[in-house]
């Protein structure tokens, strides 16, 4: 396929941020080319991939998305191209063994759809508590972009103000769809934590069609498979937008691995170069460039693009590209309940105790929120039960009992930006000969103190209130797959990579919207915040191009 030369905007990536930015630009009359490293796949294939996995691998969300040799994504212990792709190190390296999807549509293919907003407090950590960084603008300025995001993706949420997040901060528009119903287990959990602990488990806002079709996609039918894939498209994932983008005139090129972003003598970005599966290189020019290809791949690409003018990598005069790698360090606890709760009806994440994530204690340790996951538990209990040697009716009863009384509670923490939590280019090469990314990660004392003094004890209290057979344990900090910080936002170009509309400080025609821009993480899934930043960036691009033209 021949690409238009010198499109208005070249976008690297086809994930949720890229898709939203692209649509805003197309609607404003700009021409858009999108370059996707991986393949375009059908939903049916992914759904069948999942169903074809043996029971022992069904808990592995990335196993339904085998990566292509030219576009590896992390696939630990799989023997696949992505097996040894992301090199992690540091005291919590395993806590950063992230999961993302290098296919057209990106990682929203397998996200849970959880859509927490930041709070005003979350955006002023430094002013409020003397830790971390402030956002360069207040919540009020971000709020209208959250609304755009919620209507674009189709986000359902509670109409009861007492359940809305942030609490006590008026929304400028209602949610487009009402909250989804709880499972029996979630109802019981909500009652228990309220009655015994005085905590509020609220319906979480989520990108899922609730009670009705929306965005020409069907309603949720409780297939409880959001992770790894929604079989019917009731959950928003960026793959659902691609057909519409193409109908609006976007040119999308798949299996095109961008490996170098080129600058000109004025240090503006002039072109990107990509390799195809035949390892042939191609060059694409444009006027404005957007890199929205994932929180690991975007800084990696900037570093790979180092040239004489930018010896430390593009957009990197601050030396912050690849630094401040953040996530929501997660502690997961399997629980064995005394009485059946029954999770597995409705979506896999449907609620959370978020009120615990605010407070003055953040001067001392990380905030945390708590959730009772809603996955059907069959795959977690089957092998253990079968190994007990039961047969017949006794087996059925035990299996049923274990399924109904098994669960998982999770504590998800915020983390501070630490320049030593850093992504660099390792000297290992992938199939195309490009450097594999390496991340050094330490959750830091701020988070460890939280686990010790705050979240750990809270989990035990919650478990006890629920009625467990034994005190739950965790295997330690694991990734939430919310990759943030690698292209951090700020007003001071000496210690930040992008400005408040995600424009690179160094290159006026380069935008880096996404999780990488977030200066603070709070505790909830970062997706709608990333998309809100995408809307802001798109607005700035349109303004900039119309002014420049």
């Amino acid at each position, binding site marked *: 396929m021949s690409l238009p030369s010198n499109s208005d905007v070249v976008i690297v990536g086809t994930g949720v941020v890229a898709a939203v930015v692209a649509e805003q630009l197309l609607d404003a009359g700009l021409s858009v080319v999108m370059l996707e490293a991986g393949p375009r796949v059908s939903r049916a*294939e992914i759904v069948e991939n999942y169903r074809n996995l043996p029971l022992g691998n069904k808990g592995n969300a990335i196993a339904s998305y085998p990566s292509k040799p030219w576009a590896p994504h992390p696939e630990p212990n799989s023997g696949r191209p992505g097996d040894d792709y992301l090199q992690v190190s540091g005291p919590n390296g395993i806590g950063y063994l992230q999961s993302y999807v290098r296919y057209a549509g990106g990682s929203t293919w397998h996200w849970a759809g959880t859509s927490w907003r930041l709070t005003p407090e979350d955006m002023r950590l430094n002013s409020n508590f003397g830790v971390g960084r402030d956002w360069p603008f207040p919540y009020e300025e971000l709020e209208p972009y959250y609304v755009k995001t919620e209507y674009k993706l189709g986000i359902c949420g509670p109409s009861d103000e007492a359940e809305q997040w942030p609490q006590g901060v008026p929304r400028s528009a209602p949610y487009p769809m009402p909250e989804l119903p709880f499972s029996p287990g979630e109802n019981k959990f909500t009652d228990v934590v309220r009655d015994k602990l005085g905590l509020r488990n609220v319906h979480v806002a989520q990108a899922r069609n609730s009670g009705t079709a929306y965005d*020409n996609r069907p309603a949720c039918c409780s297939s409880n498979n959001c992770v790894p894939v929604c079989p019917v498209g009731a959950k928003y994932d960026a793959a659902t937008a691609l*057909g519409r983008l193409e109908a609006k005139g976007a040119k999308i090129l798949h299996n095109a691995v961008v490996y170098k972003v080129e600058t000109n003598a004025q240090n503006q970005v002039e072109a990107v170069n990509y390799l195809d599966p035949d390892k042939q290189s191609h060059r694409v020019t444009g006027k404005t460039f957007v890199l929205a290809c994932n929180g690991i791949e975007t800084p990696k690409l900037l570093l790979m693009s180092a040239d004489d003018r930018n010896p430390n990598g593009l957009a990197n005069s601050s030396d912050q590209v690849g630094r401040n790698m953040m996530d929501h360090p997660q502690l997961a606890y399997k629980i064995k309940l005394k009485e059946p709760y029954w999770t597995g009806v409705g979506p896999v994440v449907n609620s959370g105790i978020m009120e615990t994530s605010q407070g003055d204690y953040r001067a001392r340790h990380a905030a945390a929120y708590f959730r009772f996951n809603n996955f059907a538990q069959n795959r977690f209990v089957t092998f253990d039960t079968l190994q007990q040697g039961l047969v017949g009716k006794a087996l059925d009863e035990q299996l049923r009992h274990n399924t109904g009384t098994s669960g998982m509670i999770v504590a998800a923490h915020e983390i501070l930006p630490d320049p030593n939590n850093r992504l660099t280019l390792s000297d290992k090469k992938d199939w195309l000969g490009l450097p594999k990314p390496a991340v050094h990660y330490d959750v830091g004392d701020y988070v460890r103190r939280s686990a010790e003094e705050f979240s750990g004890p809270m989990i035990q209290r919650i478990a006890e209130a629920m009625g467990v057979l034994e005190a739950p344990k965790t295997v330690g900090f694991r990734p939430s797959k919310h990759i943030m910080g690698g292209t951090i936002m700020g007003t001071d170009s000496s210690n930040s990579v992008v400005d408040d509309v995600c424009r690179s400080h160094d290159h006026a025609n380069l935008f880096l919207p996404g999780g990488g821009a977030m200066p603070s993480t709070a505790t909830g899934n970062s997706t709608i915040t990333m998309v809100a930043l995408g809307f802001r960036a798109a607005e700035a691009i349109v303004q900039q191009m119309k002014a420049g033209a």
Partner: protein
Amino acid sequence: MMKKLTASLIFGASVLLSPLALAAASDDPAVIAKGEYLAEASDCTACHTQEHGGKPFAGGKAIHSPVGEIFATNITPSKQFGIGNYSEEQFANALRNGVAADGSRLYPAMPYTAYAKLTDEDIHALYSYFMHGVEPVDNPTSETVLPFPMNLRFSMAIWNTLFHDNKSHQDDPSKSEEWNRGRYLVEGPTHCSTCHTPRGFMMQELGDQNLAGAQVGPWYAPNITPDEVSGIGSWSKAELVEYLKTGRIEGKAQAAGSMAEAVTNSFQHLTDEDLNAIAEYVMSVPAINNASEDRFTQGEAGNQLAQFRGKAFDAETEAEGARIYSGNCAACHGYNGQGTDDGYYPSMFNNSVTGEENTSNLIAAIIYGVHRETEAGGNVFMPPFGDQPNALNSLSDEQIATLSNYLMDSYGLASAEVTPEQVAVIRAGGEKSPLVQQARIGMAAGAAVVVLLLLGFVLRRKRRK
């Protein structure tokens, strides 16, 4: 010149005969409300309001007919672009005879053949509604240009002479009030026969096949006579009423395509009395048998999962149809084709779509999806699998044929066959009528005969000299 003469002759005649000549639109809210109800019953909006945010009755929607695209006109009371200047007389003439105010002819895509049944009183109410209850929209609509010779609108006069009965409804005193009301609604405003009655070569309804089933673009409007095997004779009156209200009878049938539109825009708004009257009448028309199998009771649960489960998605398999079903359909319709327990997602068996010999609806439902919205039935949505931007997955003609054959074999009428060519025709909007081509050939042949006759005449005269 000829066109205007003919038109004014007809116009003059109808003026002489009609008591509506001097009637004015009523301001009475009760009359206007009655007009609104009748407009819903007649489903004016289905054609005259553009989908996805068109202003009510402002026209512009393209109706795909077998002879080409017909654009519905603006029937808001706009004086410049709508019917704002129509007298009630002219309004009635359009509804009953297919004649517009300027004398030009309407194609029977506008079902005036049915609306002719409307009583004067109801016409008056409709007129009042359109004049006083609808917002004028000052937007023009596209011109309809059908291929020659269909673009000769005056030819519709001949067609009307041959095929149009413009007498309005008369009660049959030997039947109940409910039956008469039902007949009035069915033959008049709700114009069931315009879809459900097969048409002859000149596209006229075949009266002796009334409601026995007909193709409507990519969809098939099935036999709804009370025949026990090929019609809806196995339905109770209550079921038919429920179907009209919600578009669904569990374990039997669901409305899609134009019928889903009709349920959403029209039937769900009718009173229970009217729906019962419609059911009463429909269940009384002559039963016509044109199928050997009952389309509601075919098939049973089952699957071919073991043939491909656990193997690579692109591995060779003989169960390709089952695999397409599994990946694309089973999440809603069940791994055994059983649907959901609450019946919201229909089963694939005991389903008139897979039980029907005419496979159009199966193919069309896959390509176009289903969308109905009723108060009683909620928002019902099945995504499309064609080339739409929101297609859940774009399936090829081959894939849809394979899938359809699997569905018919496993869950429906095993004898039915679907080919990729059939799928392509449905994808393109249904069969085109050969009428255009034949008319042209006919005209060319006719012209050739005239030329030959003239030539012969001239030659003979020359020889005589």
